[in-house]
C-alpha cells in the first residue's frame, strides 16, 4: 500500500472550479519541486475563465528529468477541490477518476461522502485510497479565508508523498505572493508607505497560508496508508 507514496514520479490531475486556485496550485507545486532540486512540469486546462466553471490542471512531479508533455490522462494522484466536480459532473474528465492508475491516491475536499456504490467498487478494484476532508472549512478556520483551500489540498498531498520539505513550499508560496523581484525602496514616502502596507498584508497572507499547509502536513503524517479502508476521513 505504501507504494502509493514512494514513487519517483507522480502524475497529478487537479480538478476544481474557477476561482479555487487550481492553476495557482499547479504553479506553486512546480516551483516547490524546483526549489527542492527536483523536476516538475505543468499544464493548465480550462474553457471559459469564470468562477464555478470547471478547471483542470496537470502537474508532473519527479525526482528525475521529465520528457513527456501534454495533459495527464493516467494520473497517480487526483485532487478534487470541490464536491460539485463529482456530484454535478463539473469536470473535463468524467467520471472524475477516469484513467486513475492502480494503487493511487485521491484527495477530496468535502465534508460528506460524494462517492456512490459504483465509484466505491471501481476504486476498491484499483486499490485506491481516498483522503476526504473539508479543506475549505480548514482554510476558513485557520487562515480566515476560503481562498486558502488550495493550500490545504496541496499541503495534504505534499505531506503524503514526501518529495519536498515545508521550507521548499514556503519559498514557492513566497515567490508566488511576494514575487522574487520585489524592491522596497520606492520614490516618494507616499509610495513607500503604500508598498509597505501592501507588503504587510501579503506577509500576513503568506503566514496564514503556511499555517494551513503545516496543519495539513500534520494530518498527512497521522495517516496510515496500509489500511484496508478505501476512505480516510478527517473531521474538521
Amino acid at each position, binding site marked *: 500500500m505504501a507504494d502509493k507514496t514512494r514513487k519517483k514520479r507522480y502524475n497529478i490531475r487537479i480538478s476544481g472550479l474557477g476561482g479555487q486556485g487550481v492553476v495557482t496550485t499547479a504553479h506553486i507545486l512546480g516551483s516547490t519541486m524546483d526549489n527542492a532540486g527536483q523536476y516538475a*512540469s505543468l*499544464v493548465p486546462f480550462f474553457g471559459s475563465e469564470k468562477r464555478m466553471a470547471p478547471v483542470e490542471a496537470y502537474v508532473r512531479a519527479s525526482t*528525475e528529468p*521529465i*520528457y*513527456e*508533455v*501534454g*495533459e495527464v*490522462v*493516467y494520473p497517480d494522484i487526483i485532487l478534487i477541490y470541490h464536491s460539485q466536480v463529482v456530484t454535478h459532473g463539473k469536470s473535463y474528465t468524467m467520471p472524475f*477518476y*477516469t*484513467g*486513475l*492508475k*492502480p494503487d493511487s491516491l485521491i484527495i477530496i475536499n468535502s465534508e460528506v461522502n460524494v462517492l456512490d456504490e459504483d465509484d466505491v467498487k*471501481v476504486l476498491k*478494484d*484499483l486499490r485506491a485510497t481516498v483522503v476526504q476532508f473539508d479543506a475549505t472549512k480548514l482554510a476558513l478556520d485557520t487562515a480566515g479565508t476560503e481562498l486558502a483551500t488550495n493550500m490545504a489540498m496541496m499541503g495534504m498531498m505534499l505531506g503524503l508523498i514526501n518529495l519536498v520539505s515545508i521550507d521548499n513550499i514556503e519559498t514557492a508560496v513566497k515567490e508566488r505572493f511576494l514575487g522574487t523581484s520585489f524592491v522596497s525602496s520606492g520614490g516618494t514616502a507616499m509610495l513607500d508607505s503604500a508598498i509597505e502596507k501592501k507588503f504587510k498584508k501579503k506577509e500576513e497572507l503568506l503566514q496564514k497560508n503556511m499555517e494551513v499547509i503545516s496543519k495539513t502536513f500534520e494530518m498527512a503524517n497521522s495517516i496510515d496508508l496500509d489500511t484496508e479502508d478505501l476512505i480516510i476521513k478527517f473531521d474538521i
Partner: protein
Amino acid sequence: MSPNPEKKLEKTLVDINYLLKEAPREKHFITGAQAMAEAVKRASVDMAIAYPITPQSEVMHLVGDIYAQGHIKEYYRAEEELGTMSAIAGAARAGVRLFTATSGPGLLRGLEAIVSWPGHRVPAVLGILTRVINAPLSIQPDNIEMAYMMHCGAVMLHAENQQDTFDFTLAAFAIAEKVDVYIPVAVATEGFFVTHAKGYVEMTPEDMALTEFDPVAAPVPAMDNETPPARIQRDAPVQKSNFMSYLIHAVWQQEIWDSNKRAMKYIYEYLGGPIEVKNPESDVFLIASGCAAAQAREAWRYAQEAGLSVGLIKVRAIRPFPIDEIRDAVKNAKSIIVPEHNIIGWLCKEVKAAIPNGGIVTEGPRVYGGMTLPVELIMKEIHNSLGLEYDLKL
C-alpha cells in the same frame, strides 16, 4: 517595412561548426517558439517574410521583434501565405538568407509555392509549427501536415523539444546553403507541446552569429546587374518542345532529390546523424520523431526501470529519410512500435518501407486532433509486444 541599416549590430561571425559545437552556451528556460526565434537571431538572416495567419505560433511575431532590434535587415509582411511563400522564392533570386514560419492551414495555403522552392533552388529555412488541418476545426497540435511536405524535395528535420528546435534551426541554414544541397530545409516541431511550452535550452551568445550568406556559392547564382537569371528562369523549358520540357523537368528533379540525399552528410556533421539510438541490442524498439519522441523517451525510461528489453530510435531527419540507418538499427528487433501525432501514421509507413520485415511493426499508438500522446499507451504496446500484462484498467 523598410530596411534597418542604422541598427546594424556588432557581432562576431563564426562558422556553423564552431557555432553548434564549440561556442559557449548558457542555459535558458524558454518556449519552443522563442527557441526558434533565438536561432534566427544568431543566423545572420537577411530577410524574414510572413503573414500572421491564425492559427500560427509566436515565431514570426518574435522574429518581428528581432527585426526591430536590428538582428535582421528586412521584414516583409506578405498579403497571405501563398504570397509569403512566393515572395520567399522571389527574394531568394536576389541572393539573401531567408526565413519564414507557418502552421497547419497556413502551410497548406502556401504549399503550391513551397513545393516549387526545391526546383527553383531556394535555400530558405521554413519553420513548421504543426497544428491540426482538415475539418472539424481544432487548433491543437497534430503533425499530419508534414505528410504533405514530404514529397517536394525539401530537407525536413523534426525537433523533439525546445533544444532541438534551437539547434536544428541553426543547422538548417548551413545545410540549405551547401552548394551540393541548395534546397530549402524545413524545421518542424509540434505546436503547443513545444512552441507554447517552456523547456531548458542551452544557447550560444547573442553577439555571435553565423557567417553571412554568400550568394555566389550557389548552383543557381543570384541575379544582379552582372549575373543574368539562370536559364531555367529566363527561358522556361515549357516554351520548348514537349519532349524538351519532359527531359529538363526529369533531370532537374532527379538533381533535386540527389541534392536532398547529399544533405545527409551534413546532418551527420552538424546534428550527429539522422537518428539517435538507445539500447541497440533490444528486442522491442520504439521509433518516433518530434514530440512523439519525447513521449517515447519517457516510455523507454519506464521500461528501463522495469528491466524490459526496449530500445529507442529518435528520427531527426524525415527527409532525407534514414532508410539504411533504420534498417541497420532494427535488424535484430523482434517488434517495432511507432507512436505518432497524426491519424495516417506517415512515420510508420516510412519505417515499414525501409525494412524487409514490415510485419513486426505495430501501427501506433496514434493520437490526432490535438490530444497528448499518453506514455501509458506506449507502455501498453511495449507490454503487448513482450507478451506481458499491463495494468491499465480505466
